[in-house]
């Protein structure tokens, strides 16, 4: 991509200051910062919840909490991590980077953008408020069904469920608005000459994600609304006594829930190639193949949902169909792995923190992918299903594949965002502590699952004690290590650290590196021309 016209530095950033600036901002960079900061805060909120859970699971017996509170923590942990940490982090990236990378002056719908973000804090508040209310004797606490809302357990539950339903509605509206904005931006505001097939992979990953969100979030919203009417208005969508079907809820939920996995991962798969290319000092390998893989995964993701409940007693032909359609996802995913490794192959690699996280991501996400392949097998799944094997599997996917990918991206673009270099030493410590403690936490959970420990139990048989103790130790190291990340990032945001050049990394390519670090408040007001 050659840039024909260079962008002149512009400084007319007239906007309110203080709190009002952040409340009223329509600037994609400000909103990106809001999303990312919110995600960081909620990452620690969700993390603290699960550390309480791991502390309870350190030893057999009930030590710290009663089972009902335990059930609330695991469900809210998942909802917070998925909807309030990982998804906002990805949207934060989109806000900051898509306009910079495609040469657009801002997002296409700036006011919608502001609203999209400011729906999130009330949603997070709604999710966690029932904890506080319960302290004052109002209600029985937060949602206690796990993040999956399975009926009829969720019909039985207390008002924490209603709070969670409304929170999901708000989060869903926010996601859909963000998606519309991203699609509108990508389709309308690309720099002249940037055809779709010249567009950065990160924008491609998000484009597919946005379509997936628009296709599936309404299904989730519908399912939880049906749940709401079952709870309060006497409908029987999911109650057999009135002619409903509890498994219908699972079909609807996972029609959203499985694509959700790719909604969380596609933005990361989009950004990883940029990092690999930059630190291998070599162009991205197989660009077109990756774009088509994104699209293929997007399509496949909406036709495999029932593998989340193979043990529900589905008919044999359905089981065979869902098994093979699920296994098919391994093909486009293998294309991505192939391209990632081929991008590194015969490069001139150096291993700064973003590259460490990117390569760590590939290896650990590989474990998620491979265990996913065997989870697709219906017969063996009867053993894995709802055991700790699944818990380990999806944390390899969502922590290693999601969060670690996001961290790679943060380290990669932090110099661009803040104009400051983070501490490389701290970054490397953060990486190695994270990788070691992550495996210490989740590798034992594979074996716990194989040995027969069900998930979501507050207390367990004695044969599971050793692995649980190891896992808890790992989780606490993992949790504390993330403070290094927060410190490193906040330091840069506070203007500390070495100043960063426009092209912060030797091998970095793309329009965003043509701009100064940090970029001025408004960028690409005159769009660059891409040849």
């Amino acid at each position: 991509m050659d840039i024909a016209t260079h962008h002149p530095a512009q400084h007319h950033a007239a906007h309110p200051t203080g709190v009002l600036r952040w409340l009223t901002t329509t600037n994609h960079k400000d909103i990106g910062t809001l999303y990312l900061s919110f995600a960081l805060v909620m990452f620690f909120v969700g993390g603290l919840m699960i550390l309480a859970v791991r502390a309870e699971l350190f030893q057999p017996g009930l030590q710290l909490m009663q089972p009902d509170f335990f059930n609330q923590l695991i469900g809210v942990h998942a909802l917070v991590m998925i909807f309030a940490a990982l998804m906002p982090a990805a949207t934060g990236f989109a806000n900051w980077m898509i306009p910079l990378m495609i040469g657009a002056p801002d997002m296409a719908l700036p006011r919608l953008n502001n609203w999209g973000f400011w729906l999130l804090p009330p949603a997070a508040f709604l999710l966690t408020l029932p904890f506080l209310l319960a302290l004052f004797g109002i209600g029985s606490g937060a949602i206690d069904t796990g993040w999956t809302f399975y009926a009829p357990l969720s019909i039985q539950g207390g008002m924490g469920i209603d709070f969670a339903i409304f929170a999901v509605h708000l989060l869903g509206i926010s996601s859909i608005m963000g998606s519309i904005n991203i699609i509108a931006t990508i389709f309308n505001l690309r720099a002249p000459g940037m055809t779709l097939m010249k567009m950065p992979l990160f924008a491609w990953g998000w484009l597919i994600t946005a379509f997936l969100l628009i296709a599936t979030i309404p299904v989730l919203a519908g399912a939880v609304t049906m749940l709401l009417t079952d709870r309060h208005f006497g409908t029987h969508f999911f109650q057999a006594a009135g002619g409903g079907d509890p498994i219908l809820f699972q079909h609807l939920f996972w029609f959203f829930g499985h694509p959700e996995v790719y909604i969380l991962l596609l933005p990361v798969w989009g950004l990883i190639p940029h990092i690999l290319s930059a630190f291998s000092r070599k162009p991205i390998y197989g660009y077109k193949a990756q774009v088509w893989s994104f699209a293929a995964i997007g399509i496949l993701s909406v036709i495999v949902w029932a593998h989340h409940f193979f043990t529900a007693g589905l008919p044999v032909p359905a089981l065979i169909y869902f098994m093979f359609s699920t296994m098919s996802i391994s093909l486009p995913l293998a294309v991505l792995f192939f391209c990632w490794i081929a991008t590194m192959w015969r490069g001139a690699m150096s291993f700064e923190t973003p590259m460490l996280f990117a390569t760590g991501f590939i290896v650990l996400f590989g474990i998620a992918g491979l265990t996913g392949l065997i989870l697709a097998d219906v017969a063996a799944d009867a053993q894995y299903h709802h055991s700790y094997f699944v818990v380990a599997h999806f944390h390899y996917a969502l922590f290693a594949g999601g969060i670690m990918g996001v961290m790679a991206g943060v380290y990669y673009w932090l110099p661009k965002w803040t104009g400051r270099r983070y501490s490389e030493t701290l970054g490397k410590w953060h990486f190695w502590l994270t990788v070691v403690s992550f495996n210490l936490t989740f590798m034992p959970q594979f074996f716990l699952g194989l040995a027969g420990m069900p998930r979501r139990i507050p207390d367990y048989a004695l044969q599971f004690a050793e692995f649980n103790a190891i896992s808890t130790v790992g989780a606490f190291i993992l949790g504390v290590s993330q403070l290094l990340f927060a410190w490193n990032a906040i330091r840069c945001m506070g203007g500390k650290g070495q100043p960063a050049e426009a092209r912060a990394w030797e091998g970095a390519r793309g329009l965003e590196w043509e701009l100064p670090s940090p970029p001025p408040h408004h960028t690409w007001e005159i769009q660059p021309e891409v040849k």
Partner: protein
Amino acid sequence: MAACAEEIPKPIAGWRRALLIALLAAPAGAFAAFTWNFPEPVTPVAHETLKIHNEFMIIITVLFTVVFAIMIYSMAKHRKKAGHQAAGFTGPKGALQWFWVLVPFAILLFIDFVLMGVPAVHALIQMEDSQSRADMVLKVTGMQWKWQYEYPDSDIRFVSALATPPDQISNAEAKGDNYLLEVDNPVVLPVGRKVRVLLTSTDVIHTWWVPQFGVKRYAIPGFLRETWLKIEQPGTYRGQCAELCGKGHGFMPVVVEAVPEADYLAWVEKRKSMALAAADATERAWSKDELIAQGKAVYEKICATCHQPDGRGLPGAFPAIAGSKVVNTPLIAVDGKPAKDSHVDRVMNGKPGTAMQAFKTTLSDVEIASVITFQRNSFGNRQGDMIQPAQIKALR
């Protein structure tokens, strides 16, 4: 933990375990206390499941090793520090390169749909074959937070609940070997017989799981699901509910005792005579003290999980029995039937949409009569009246 009894799942021996340990870089140490794989299989389905699991683990371990060996080789070799110059290629060029690029995907296609797909379909069809040539039926009903088992051929029905004392759970007392995996009434099944298992639930979705059987299936309220077992060797097999079903989810184990055919028949006879004795108990007149004593035991086993041992409930979640409006209603309305939302009605028919289930389906007449009498005369409730098992029987 090493002292655990024989039913603690044993790690499968041999090279597969060694392979797993080596390749997954598990921490070295006291292997005796750790299990690395499925517990020992005892049904045809579990054998098949373990076999394909092991094969698939080997396949994915090989894939993992090969792919990441290439990557790590590249990371070591193609470093800037080592003076490596970056190449500039962005895709395959020429027929030969295309061939080598496409080969891995052809291999993966073969692995997915043949190497893994064929045995997987085979195992799946075997697993779902629950109806052909079944020797007997076991009906399993999940309910918060216990299992009810029925043997339709022998007219046997009983509830099986956790037998671990609360003091062990609250760490007031040392934990037994089968902590949380022990029940008051285990399921007894004959060895070598094909048992068709029908599953349902009375409240929320539960999942019946015994790892050594290779069987896990949802128990869905209002629907029947099925699976099957053919246990190959006598023994006690333990499992748990695998679907989050409320606060007692971690406390509803499954215990199956597999015994030789003759022992099974003897057990059936014993169960039948117990049923006869229970019928006698229903017919006779009970004194109030007898009912209260019996009812206390029932309360502690069935009701205390939610309503708490002190009868005070959990505010916001489970109502108190002490001073309860429902408990302090007249026993029988003028027409001789329990009024709606009266004490008897609530215990027998439950409250739909809550964890309060219709106990008439699981408790005997004696149990219902005694627990009602107990609740009316305990926790500060002073109704002073009682209800006879025979009256409950008449109300069913």
